[in-house]
């Protein structure tokens, strides 16, 4: 029997002329040449596999790195930050000895190819990042964006994505407490499926991804390694979809939430007994990533015997084992005398665990297969020294024209009747309509600590049963604003998430982001990216909320058409006592409604311009971050001191959308009076930032007004909680029944 010899390091050195399929693995010629230069010889097949996945856009951030540095350079001083960018997820101090870790990631491309599994494994991946920090996951959130609501493909993608998120997250026992659902034709063919997770731990339980201590064992545990997701990272995430190429379906991984649930429990039990020196989850790039990152972040080298990896498919080649993205696997570094106990815990939970290698004295990552050495690299060159591109970027030629197409000049409703019709159109439009059909497929209640869940302004979870300490999270993004002005658009996303956290009574502490853009090879897209990152970094600096980590998703485009630049921002906040949280729903008739902040004629990128005129042009609303900070302080103080009973931030759809939502959730109507100096149209539809509507009990009226006056926040009394209509006096009145019917029937009619 004859067979090709194993491509060992020795063999590679002896056969310099062998051609390797670097292009098929997604590497560029100069990248391949660099690998040869680093190694001083041609790479083996296994080495090439590792470099190709780790140097992919998805894993190496090669196009975005030069811009992302700003998050570190401009990071505000924050006592709350315990672990910053670079680890599996950032960690924030929330007081009373508790630390919270959170992160948002994308699973966009896989979710388009296979909506259910793509979205499900997105949840699985982000949750493993949280466990890898040492935390128990306590909640997930899902910011989602799809093509036009009435497009046939949306009906394929959305139900699958929602079922996948629910199917995985529900089975893991994680309450889904927030996120967004946005429809826009620009996401046709490039849906954005972002997933966020929060975990809670004690300060002393923080774990990091590093392998230290020669002789310590490397244990792979969780699912067996199979052929799914091979090359997913490099092929799926780094190329634009093109109809002419063959189907990429096999590259999407398949998830098993039951296995992940066991992984959570056995990992947390091992942490509790202090058995783990370092830990890393296996996500994109699988074992290639886990071994090279653990080894390069630690003090020594690492030796791995690939033959010991438990396989689901015995025909896998060593290259495939290294690249496999089989889900529900983790890698732990454990001291030799604790290995038995670690394996015992895995056995208790019926989790397969295998020692596959050990930490060595040297500084090399060596991998063996059938007795031959098939990898011998400096792990840093794989994990951290990937290529860095200074991609050219330029403000697109059409930007001026787009901004000159002023939305404020669009025809406005002339009569009360027209105004009413437009309100009804907006409230029933897919983006403004109730997303209950979607969110009711997610478990909100599991773990018994959910204080607020969508459609509240932010999700809120109780952390400590005794003291009532809690955390809140909101995710926001508006691609329409960002298209008009990426710098301002990114800051508006930050401002909205920050405001949403404060509206519920929590103090914003830190930021995670998921930056969704088109192809970095297009200078216009690269400019959008650079501007958005600059805007976000500047904004975080000003608000004092550091970016703790996140994710970049590029190549979200089909052919020449890129998605709107869509930075999605997650803000994490803390609240001393969840009993003081402020809900969106109107609580009691007779309470006074106040509008906080300034209302200007700002309609660029607005929901009104989209729904009524199918228009996108002009400038997005102005951002004033000092005002946002002041508004947040007022909202937090008012919540803490019991001055407000409900509050809702104003964003897309403007004031009328917010009031309708508060009324429907509370089952109580409102009488509104158009304030002096504003016309009814601007009052109802303007999307000026830095605003919220609050309901104040009459007994607190004076105190609340005094507080706003003393701190210089504009406050306008606009009406009262009353009756079973939303009544804009002198204009129109709509019953809650008709509003509810309209608001709640849109999504089921399109998707059910």
């Amino acid at each position: 029997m004859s067979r090709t010899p194993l491509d060992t390091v020795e063999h590679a050195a002896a056969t310099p002329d062998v051609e390797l399929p670097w292009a098929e693995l997604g590497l560029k010629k100069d990248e391949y040449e660099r690998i040869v230069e680093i190694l001083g010889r041609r790479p083996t097949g296994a080495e090439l596999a590792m470099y190709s996945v780790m140097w992919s856009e998805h894993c190496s951030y090669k196009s975005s790195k030069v811009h992302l540095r700003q998050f570190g350079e401009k990071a505000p001083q924050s006592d709350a930050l315990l672990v910053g960018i670079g680890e599996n997820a950032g960690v924030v101090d929330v007081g009373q000895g508790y630390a919270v870790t959170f992160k948002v990631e994308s699973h966009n491309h896989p979710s388009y190819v296979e909506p259910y599994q793509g979205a499900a494994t997105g949840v699985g991946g982000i949750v493993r990042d949280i466990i890898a920090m040492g935390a128990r996951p306590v909640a997930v959130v899902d910011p989602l964006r799809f093509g036009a609501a009435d497009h046939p493909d949306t009906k394929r993608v959305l139900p699958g994505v929602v079922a996948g998120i629910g199917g995985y997250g529900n089975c893991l026992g994680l309450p889904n407490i927030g996120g967004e659902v946005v429809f826009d034709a620009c996401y046709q063919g490039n849906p954005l499926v972002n997933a966020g997770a929060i975990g809670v731990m004690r300060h002393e339980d923080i774990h990091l991804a590093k392998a230290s201590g020669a002789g310590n064992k490397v244990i792979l545990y969780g699912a067996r390694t199979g052929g799914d997701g091979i090359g997913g990272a490099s092929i799926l995430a780094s190329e634009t979809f093109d109809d002419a190429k063959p189907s990429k379906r096999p590259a999407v991984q398949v998830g098993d939430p039951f296995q992940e649930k066991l992984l959570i429990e056995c990992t947390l039990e091992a942490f509790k007994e202090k058995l783990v020196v370092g830990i890393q989850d296996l996500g994109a790039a699988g074992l290639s990533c886990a071994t090279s990152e653990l080894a390069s972040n630690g003090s020594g080298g690492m030796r791995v015997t690939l033959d010991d990896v438990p396989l689901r498919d015995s025909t896998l080649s060593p290259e495939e084992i290294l690249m496999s993205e089989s889900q529900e696997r983790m890698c732990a570094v454990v001291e030799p005398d604790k290995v038995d106990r670690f394996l015992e815990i895995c056995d208790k939970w019926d989790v397969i665990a295998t020692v596959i290698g050990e930490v060595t004295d040297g500084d090399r990552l060596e991998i063996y297969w059938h007795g031959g050495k098939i990898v011998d690299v400096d792990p840093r060159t794989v994990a951290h020294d990937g290529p860095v591109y200074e991609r050219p970027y330029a403000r697109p030629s059409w930007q001026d024209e787009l901004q000159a197409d002023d939305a404020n000049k669009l025809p406005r409703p002339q009569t009360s009747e027209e105004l009413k019709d437009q309100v009804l159109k907006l409230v029933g439009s897919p983006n403004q309509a109730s997303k209950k059909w979607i969110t009711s497929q997610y478990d909100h209640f599991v773990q018994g600590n959910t204080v607020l869940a969508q459609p509240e302004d932010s999700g809120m979870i109780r952390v400590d049963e005794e003291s009532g300490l809690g955390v809140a999270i909101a995710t926001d993004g508006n691609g329409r604003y960002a298209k008009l002005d990426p710098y301002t658009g990114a800051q508006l996303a930050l401002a909205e998430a920050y405001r949403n956290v404060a509206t519920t009574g929590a103090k914003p502490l830190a930021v995670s982001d998921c930056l969704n853009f088109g192809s970095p090879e297009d200078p216009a897209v690269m400019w959008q990216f650079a501007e958005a990152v600059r805007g976000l970094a500047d904004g975080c600096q000003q608000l004092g909320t550091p970016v703790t980590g996140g994710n970049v998703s590029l190549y979200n485009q089909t052919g020449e058409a890129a998605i709107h630049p869509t930075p999605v921002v997650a803000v994490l906040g803390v609240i001393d006592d969840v009993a003081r949280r402020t809900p969106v729903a109107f609580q009691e008739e007779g309470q006074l409604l106040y509008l906080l902040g300034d209302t200007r004629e700002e309609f660029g990128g607005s929901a009104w311009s989209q729904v009524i005129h199918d228009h996108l042009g002009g400038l997005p609303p102005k951002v004033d971050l000092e005002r946002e900070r002041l508004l947040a302080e007022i909202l937090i103080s008012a919540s803490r001191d019991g001055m407000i009973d409900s509050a809702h931030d104003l964003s897309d759809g403007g004031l009328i959308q917010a009031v309708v939502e508060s009324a429907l959730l509370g089952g109580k109507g409102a009488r509104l009076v158009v304030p002096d100096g504003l016309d009814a149209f601007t009052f109802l539809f303007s999307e000026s930032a830095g605003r919220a509507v609050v309901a104040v009990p009459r007994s607190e009226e004076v105190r609340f007004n005094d507080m706003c006056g003393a701190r210089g926040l504009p406050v306008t009394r606009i009406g009262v909680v009353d009756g079973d209509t939303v009544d804009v006096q002198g204009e129109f009145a709509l019953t809650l029944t008709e509003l509810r019917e309209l608001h709640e029937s849109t999504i089921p009619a399109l998707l059910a």
Partner: protein
Amino acid sequence: MTARIGVVTFPGSLDDRDTQRAIRLAGAEPVALWHKDKNLHQVDAVVLPGGFSYGDYLRAGAISRFSPVMETVIEQAKAGLPVLGICNGFQILTEAHLLPGGMLGNNHLHFICRDQKLRVENAETAWTSDYESGQEIHIPLKNMDGRYVADQYTLDKLEAEGRVAFRYLDFNPNGSLNDIAGITNEAGNVVGLMPHPEHAVEPLIGTGRTDGLPFFTSILKKLVNA
């Protein structure tokens, strides 16, 4: 004195810790039980919690029903040990034939999570005596396979013997026959239901109602007064 109430953790159980909390809030002592351990550790009652034990593989509850702990639970339930099955626990109880009928996938084919209105039809079981018969309550519901089915003979028998413990009101969330949300065995010591009373025990959390607490105070009173 208080009562010791066991909560079984199967691989994939999700609401085990929540159930322990509810038991504690009701004033009883929760005891964690492990699926591989046949020993019930002298508990006075057992709750099989919600979740996706064994990932719902094969059929919800079908594998857990064969866990070592279930051997003892089945034996002692027949001898009168109070047992409550919530959601996946209810599914396990039907698989174990401690309760009749079974659960199919929701008739709309989606997972559903909502605040569900129920009527207490039988306030005389070990787990419902703190309710009034006919009382209307709100309890969170969340499941994929919640459609209660049984043959006509069994349904008629359940109805005739007053063994439908809870019925869905206003909206049947999964297509359950006769709007059945929960049932009891003849002796009234074994009760199963799809909604989650352990998620309705604190005013601030979840739906903000405490309509689920009487499940746990009912059993506590029964055990303490016994």
